[in-house]
């Protein structure tokens, strides 16, 4: 589903590579934690999958396509197969919960009746039934992140990328979000989650890829956050 082959990424503003000769393969339906300190290359990894950045060296395949050969105008089609969730939720503050989720479908030209059908379904899935008409600032952090997950998943993507989705949430709320991501993973969606949260990683016991200074230092199935703690 996602394959990195000797991928190196150096940003123009820094001499040190953000990713250094990374080779990783993630299968369809996997749940993968991407761990490591700030600046270890987790976000760069996710940005490369979305083709928001281009690697300096190496090849990347996502959903069967080699990204370097993907022409510019086909990038939107790629992104329709990938849902993305961020630490800061990125909701539109002047739209209701329902409108925020529907927005993702409107801008890719889905017909109105489809939107009217799938938006309540996904809001029900993430546990926000009954709160469709709230504004984001009337919701708790956990609820806002549920809206973001609903928006990322409403188009039923093959891949869900989550960049520190629990970074702004308290532990109890985080567990709720993790249950949600796990549920989404069980529908067959590949989930890649970058995180700092050792409790979550330790309790989920899923594949862990650890990055340090842009290199993969550990790739372990059913892993924990770190060896020595």
């Amino acid at each position, binding site marked *: 589903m996602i394959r990195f082959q000797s991928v190196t990424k150096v940003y123009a503003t820094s001499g040190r590579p953000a990713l250094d000769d990374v080779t990783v393969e993630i299968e369809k339906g996997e749940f993968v934690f991407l761990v490591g300190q700030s600046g270890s290359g987790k976000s760069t990894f996710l940005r490369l999958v*979305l*083709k*928001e950045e281009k690697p300096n060296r190496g090849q990347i395949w996502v959903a069967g396509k080699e990204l370097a050969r993907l022409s*510019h*105008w086909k*990038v*939107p*089609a*790629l*992104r*329709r*197969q990938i849902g*993305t969730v961020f630490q800061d939720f*990125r909701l*539109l503050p002047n739209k209701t919960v329902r409108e925020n989720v529907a*927005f*993702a479908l409107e*801008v*890719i*030209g889905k017909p109105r009746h489809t939107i009217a059908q799938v938006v309540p379904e996904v809001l029900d899935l993430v546990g926000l039934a009954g709160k469709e008409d709230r504004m984001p600032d009337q919701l708790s952090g956990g609820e806002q992140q549920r809206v973001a997950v609903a*928006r990322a998943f409403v*188009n039923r993507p093959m891949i869900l990328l989550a960049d520190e989705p629990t970074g702004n949430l308290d532990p109890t709320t985080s567990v709720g979000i993790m249950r949600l991501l796990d549920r989404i993973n069980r529908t067959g969606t590949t989930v890649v989650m970058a995180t700092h949260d050792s409790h979550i990683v330790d309790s989920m016991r899923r594949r862990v890829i650890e990055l340090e200074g842009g290199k993969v230092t550990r790739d372990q199935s059913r892993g924990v956050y770190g060896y020595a703690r």
Partner: protein
Amino acid sequence: MTIASVLTIWIALTFLGGAWLFNKQIDATKDYWFGKIQISVFLTKDVTQTERDAISAQLNSLPQVDQVFYESKAEAYQHFKEQFKSVPQLVKNTDPSALPESYRVKLKDPKKFQIVASAVQNMPGVDQVAAEAQALKKIFRLFTGIRNGMLVVALAVLVASILLIFNNVRLAAFSRRRETGIMRLVGASDVYIQAPFILEITVAALVGGLLASALMFAIKAVIVDVGLKSAFGGILTYIGWGAVWSTIPYLLLAGVLIAAVTAFGTLQRYLRV
């Protein structure tokens, strides 16, 4: 911000259109005068047939002369009536026989008028030799000056309006970056994301173009029909309303193109993946 864009586009296009109208005015005047006669040889009232023939023969023998037309008193009156049809009082009070008969001479090279004029000036039967084209040169120079001045102003304001549009679109893109960021993330196409920005500024340009078009009519009505006509009267031909109508599509097109291209270029830089 958008209002500022509309205003600068309006002013830029007004000067551009004004320069164009003046250019048409120059062409109209040139066509009329340079196309027909450069020298008029007016004959005395008591000119004889022998003298006429001698003058005609002399003109035709000159190598600088292209064509010679004879204009009788009756024809002269006819032209006079046409030129001053806006002043019927003048036409009514002019005796048809008061206008002199003349030879109208077309030169191969209008600059050689002096040679031709001196060759016939002192012949019997010649009252006066007039080189109207020479007198008109000053007017042409004036018009050309006005046109060039307008072009310079137009270009300067055009540059200002392009910079404003650039800034305008950049600010709009910045203030809506949250929406456009999400749009990109969920896979909206470039066209879908960029179209609203381009459309907005294009509509602004269209409004500016329409305002400029309205001013074209004002320029024709005030500067040409009142200003120039009172200064130069019947010696010039003037552009008609058709000339104004034909500039309008180009003005609108120019405004829309400038705005759309500038906006598109700006978005390539500030709304990129």
